[in-house]
């Protein structure tokens, strides 16, 4: 009797497990590739500043602070939708936001910021995208949360949304600032 039931229950059980895994898969975004750089030191860089190209900005200047590095470009469509969120964030003065202007023409980038507002303490120009490559940038915008020791703690792929900011990024920033 039990054997008879097992004949049906075992395949049914396997089926349910499979449906569980496949169902979970439906809610994963295949575009979000987990970054291998999480919990690793942020790749060091030194680049010209967008507004004052005679000055340089080096990532090591930021040691001792929690900061956000936002990769953006004037040609990037989703950067436009993300922009008001960043402007809002910069007004709150919680965490310094730096821009990495990725594979862009400086004149286009400056015009874009003049047009939409500049949320960045400063932006650096990564015209040939070499620094972006070191950070494993493959889609713009991307945002990195970097802690006081210069370790990447989180990477937001795609636009920073109000929810991502409220639920993930800002709680993490506060936690890192407190430590």
């Amino acid at each position, binding site marked *: 009797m039990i054997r008879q039931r097992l004949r049906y229950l075992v395949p049914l059980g396997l089926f349910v497990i499979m449906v569980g895994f496949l169902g979970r898969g439906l809610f994963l975004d295949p575009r979000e590739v987990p970054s291998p750089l999480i919990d690793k030191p942020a790749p060091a860089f030194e680049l010209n500043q967008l507004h004052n190209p005679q000055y340089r900005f080096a990532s090591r200047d930021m040691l001792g602070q929690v900061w956000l590095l936002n990769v953006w470009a004037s040609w990037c469509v989703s950067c436009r939708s993300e922009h008001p969120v960043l402007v809002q964030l910069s007004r709150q003065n919680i965490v310094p936001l730096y821009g990495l202007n990725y594979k862009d023409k400086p004149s286009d980038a400056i015009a874009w910021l003049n047009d939409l507002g500049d949320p960045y303490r400063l932006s650096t120009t990564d015209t040939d995208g070499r620094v972006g*490559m070191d950070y*494993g940038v*493959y889609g713009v915008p991307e945002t990195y949360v970097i802690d006081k020791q210069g370790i990447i703690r989180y990477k937001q792929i795609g636009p920073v949304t109000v929810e991502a900011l409220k639920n993930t990024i800002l709680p993490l920033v506060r936690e890192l600032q407190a430590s």
Partner: protein
Amino acid sequence: MIHRMLLVLVLLLPVAVVAKEAVPLAEDPQIEARVMALSANLRCLVCQNQALSASESDFANDVRREIRLMMKEGKSDQQIIDFLVQRYGDFILFKPPVKNITLLLWFGPLLLLLIGATILLLVLRHRNRSTEGSQRLSASEHQRAEALLQGQVTEREMTARDDSDEGHRA
């Protein structure tokens, strides 16, 4: 004669210059072949499941340019792969490395095959045993078979007789 040949050469000069400009990537066909061979095994992250070698996206062009530069610097294929994995993760490889986390991925199919084979073996053995049991005839079945074989009675008569037997008993 010599003058004419010189003239032809001079006239051909701009053609040669133009030809060189048109194919800047193929300046070193050996490196280009290596770039293509290596990037055939790498995934383009923005056009997923397309190979880097087959993509014309900005991302693929950048990575190929980087690979080309590193090859000119004399880096080995393995060094280049390490460089890319460090930045983009194992996901950029079409063939994931064997690690603890990928063990199931690599050996899962073999595991499934083994499970399937075991089940098949068990089922076959079970079936064998049950047919063996039914092959042994009881004494009356033996008699009946014997009668049939000798042609004394046909199958129909036999069943008729069985039926009437049962009728008597009832």
